């Protein structure tokens, strides 16, 4: 059974047309859709062209709908094809090549063209607009050949083009007819601050200048102004404005004015023909910005699909300049006029400016320069024609002290679900709320990946954050501040307290009782909870292999190709010829790819097949070096007093003793120790979790050092006189860290979070608490066992974990 599908022909393959199609596809599949586009590209994000020019994005980055999208949605796409007219009699769309395509409905979304000044010479080579990828490419090429450029027009587009060309190394002068830049979006004050900032960034300006003629032979060589002054330029960008592209409509006999005239449902004067975007004129207004076209597209989609919709009543537009380091924003009525009450604040030191315009106490417009954090809030308030109150004034203009950036979450509540939050990608509040509630998203990044909101200019990020906060309520704050992962809002301390209070024994029990959103947790919380259980119940907790990261489960480090490494213990970095011989034999026998000396003074066999691991452990017959574990890795030592002429303490002996004592015990994160025989510190104590430095009368202990991703020099904790004291204090430090550290938190972070003084109070000053810590770690240390030996004695697990099953075709 085939039902007749109505034929929808879309003229224009840009953001307006395609976003309308996307909206239609969400509502119905009843249309058989054909799209005509005169550019050679699929739909791309035109407003991001400035970034392409600036070099921060490529053309591929800004494609919104790639060719697969058209295919997947069954849309017939004709690129590089211009439509000539709509034939109302035969109900066909006619291309310039004379091809005729029948339609039931037509959507005209032909956008706009650069307005080229009607002055002599404007058709010369080297004069371009700034509208599409072709223009952008010409500008990129010109920058490689020519030096001097002029941009005619000091509006949004002109300034972005100028900045792009400066970035590309050109000498650029912006020529502007008026005395103020962006005079259609900014007031005089903000405009002059903007000009000063852009001059600082290398753009030159010629203000109040009327271009009379473009000079040159075939190619442009300069500009002559109305006052007969001249400016040299080998390349000219015309960015004086846009004009709606109404050719098709006009040819077809559709009512046009400046743009294609549409009613509140985006219908044109011709039966079955709609229009959206920059080519339209609605209630006398032609919009040249992106946000209105999404609002229009949504109403059109509903109407064309026969779904009830409110009429389109026009848009309040706002502007954001996309030049890095220049933050400008304006919305609504922003030029002071009679009847306006003005609230303004200019700070020349911080180079910020903020102005809010009221009419009969109602907020009707705003301008921001420098600091635009309030832009989303203001846009919202002005759109809703909010009345100014003392509270609002306080929150918007503030006094600059005591949490000025406090909570401003109220406005998203009153936003309707259909309201567009992300103007660049046409994402509504409803869509964002939907993915938060139904897909459990909890961060702006997730929302970005899922919906595209904030993906382009990023200007709507504050609103997306506010919506997130509003929907998640308290969950947002706790999740953000403390929840150990997306499965729970509870902090580490709360979880540990609950485990103790309720006597919870397994990760499953913890997650069930404490209301995890995902019953078996995730890769972040399962290992953490398994660690906390082991820390609390060292004797009775049965370690859950399935809750361990692969490395700890296999007692070996997985490599990117799925092979593993084996690191046997060499206590204190000391080995023997017998051990080296065994390592050499095993390496040859099992075809080890690399034998490497590690940073921790021992040897690692790299490139071991999974099935060979148990055999290698057996043949080496050495203890596991725990190179894969959240536990004590190595104790690095220098030669020390046994041999070194400077040595004051036996660092090798003490290092080996400490490594033997504390090995195998689970800790929140990996743990490294160094023992030095004298203050020359050859074994680098300052970058270890515990660093021990011998001196003539005893030892000095350092903690919280890290030489890895975030380097931190260790803090001196104390000096001790005897070896017993040294070991006792190490015990107390390690156990205190075990009991209070967050899973995966290194001591460098732990020391900063807990505070050195607090740690001193517990492990040094209070003899009782130190003793208790030492007793607890001794008890825990009695439970540990070498994992390699254990696995060698457990045939069943070993087989299931290390050996694959081979099945071949025996048909």
């Amino acid at each position, binding site marked *: 059974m085939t039902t007749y599908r109505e034929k929808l022909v879309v003229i224009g393959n840009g953001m307006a047309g395609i976003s309308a199609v996307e909206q239609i596809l969400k509502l119905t599949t009843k249309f058989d859709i054909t799209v005509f586009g005169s550019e050679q590209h699929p739909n791309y994000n035109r407003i991001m062209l400035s970034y392409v020019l600036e070099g921060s994005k490529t053309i591929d980055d800004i494609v919104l709908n790639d060719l697969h999208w058209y295919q997947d949605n069954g849309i017939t796409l004709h690129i590089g094809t211009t439509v000539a007219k709509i034939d109302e009699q035969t109900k066909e769309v006619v291309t310039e090549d004379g091809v005729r395509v029948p339609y039931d409905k037509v959507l005209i979304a032909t956008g706009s063209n650069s307005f080229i000044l009607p002055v002599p010479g404007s058709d010369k080579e080297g004069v371009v607009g700034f509208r599409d990828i072709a223009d952008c490419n010409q500008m990129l090429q010109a920058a490689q050949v020519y030096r001097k450029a002029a941009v005619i027009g000091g509006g949004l587009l002109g300034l972005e083009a100028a900045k792009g060309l400066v970035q590309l190394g050109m000498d650029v002068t912006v020529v502007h007819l008026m005395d103020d830049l962006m005079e259609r979006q900014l007031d005089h004050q903000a405009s002059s601050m903007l000009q000063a900032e852009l001059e600082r960034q290398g753009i030159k300006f010629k203000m109040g200048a009327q271009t009379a003629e473009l000079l040159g032979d075939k190619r442009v060589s300069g500009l002559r102004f109305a006052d007969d002054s001249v400016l040299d330029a080998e390349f000219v960008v015309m960015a004086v404005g846009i004009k709606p592209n109404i050719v098709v409509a006009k040819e077809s006999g559709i009512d046009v004015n400046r743009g294609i005239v549409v009613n509140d449902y985006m219908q044109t004067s011709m039966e079955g023909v709609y229009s959206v975007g920059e080519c339209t004129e609605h209630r006398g207004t032609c919009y040249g910005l992106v946000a209105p076209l999404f609002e229009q597209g949504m109403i059109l989609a509903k109407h064309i699909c026969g779904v009830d919709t409110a009429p389109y009543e026009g848009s309040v537009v706002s502007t954001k300049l996309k030049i890095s380091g220049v933050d400008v924003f304006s919305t609504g009525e922003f030029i002071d006029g009679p009847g306006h009450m003005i609230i303004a604040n200019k700070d020349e030191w911080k180079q910020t400016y903020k102005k809010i315009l009221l009419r009969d106490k109602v907020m009707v417009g705003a301008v921001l320069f420098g600091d635009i954090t309030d832009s989303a809030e203001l846009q919202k308030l002005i759109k809703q024609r909010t009345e100014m109150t003392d509270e609002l004034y306080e929150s918007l203009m503030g006094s600059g002290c005591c949490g000025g950036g406090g909570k401003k979450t109220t406005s998203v509540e009153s936003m309707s679900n259909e309201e567009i939050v992300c103007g660049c990608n046409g994402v509504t509040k409803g869509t964002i709320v939907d993915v938060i509630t139904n897909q459990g998203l909890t961060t702006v990044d997730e929302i970005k990946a899922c919906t595209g909101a904030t993906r382009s200019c990023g200007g709507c990020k504050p609103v997306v954050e506010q919506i997130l906060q509003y929907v998640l309520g308290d969950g947002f704050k706790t999740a953000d501040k403390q929840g150990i992962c997306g499965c729970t809002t509870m902090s580490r301390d709360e979880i540990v307290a609950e485990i103790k209070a309720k006597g919870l024994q397994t990760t*499953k029990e913890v997650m069930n009782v404490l209301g995890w959103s995902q019953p078996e947790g995730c890769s972040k919380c399962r290992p953490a909870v398994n660690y906390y259980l082991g820390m609390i119940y060292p004797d009775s907790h049965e370690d859950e292999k399935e809750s361990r990261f692969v490395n700890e489960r296999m007692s070996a480090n997985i490599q990117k190709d799925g092979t593993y490494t084996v690191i046997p213990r060499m206590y204190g970095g000391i080995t023997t010829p017998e051990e080296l011989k065994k390592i050499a034999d095993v390496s040859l026998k099992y075809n080890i790819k690399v034998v490497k000396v590690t940073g921790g003074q021992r040897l690692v066999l790299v490139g071991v097949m999974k099935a060979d691991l148990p055999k290698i452990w057996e043949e080496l017959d050495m203890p596991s070096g725990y190179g894969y574990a959240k536990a004590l890795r190595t104790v690095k030592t220098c030669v020390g007093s046994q041999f070194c002429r400077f040595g004051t303490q036996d660092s090798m002996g003490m290092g080996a003793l400490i490594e033997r004592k504390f090995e195998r015990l689970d800790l929140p994160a990996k743990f490294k120790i160094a023992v030095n025989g004298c203050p020359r510190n050859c074994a680098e104590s300052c970058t270890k979790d515990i660093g021990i430095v011998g001196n003539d009368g005893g030892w000095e202990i350092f903690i919280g050092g890290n030489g890895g991703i975030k380097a931190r020099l260790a803090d001196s904790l104390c000096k001790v006189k005897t070896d017993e004291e040294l070991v006792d204090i190490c015990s107390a430090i390690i156990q205190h860290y075990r009991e209070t550290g967050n899973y995966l938190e290194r001591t460098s972070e732990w020391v900063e979070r807990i505070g050195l003084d607090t740690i001193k109070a517990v492990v040094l000053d209070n003899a009782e608490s130190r003793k208790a810590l030492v007793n607890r770690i001794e008890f825990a240390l009695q439970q540990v066992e070498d994992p390699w030996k254990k696995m060698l004695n457990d045939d069943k697990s070993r087989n299931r974990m290390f050996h694959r*099953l081979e*099945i071949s*075709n025996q048909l």
Partner: protein
Amino acid sequence: MNMSLPNETFYPVGSLDQFMKQVGRVIDLNGVEIAVFQTSDGNVFAIKNESPHPKGGPLAEGMVSGHYLYDPLHDWKIDLETGNVQAPDHGQVQVYPVKIEDGQVWVATSEFLTV
């Protein structure tokens, strides 16, 4: 969409107790590496032992939660039922039909027929 395998043939790959709960095991089925997982509810899933992440790598060593797998090298979350990678990442892993009969696990593949 990838489930309409022509000539789908089930092979016995081992008894259920050959597969630890929530710990993956690789089977080599006619030269194809497949990662087999028994989830905590006693279901068994089979997926190709190759991460859809651009950098690849094995999947059998991942952490299992419910019917999801966390990629051991890249932490991508993968639905074991469909093979779909969960947002914000994208991709899909080939899944193979599984049945359990009398404590015996069967996995179906047809790849060797088409190769």
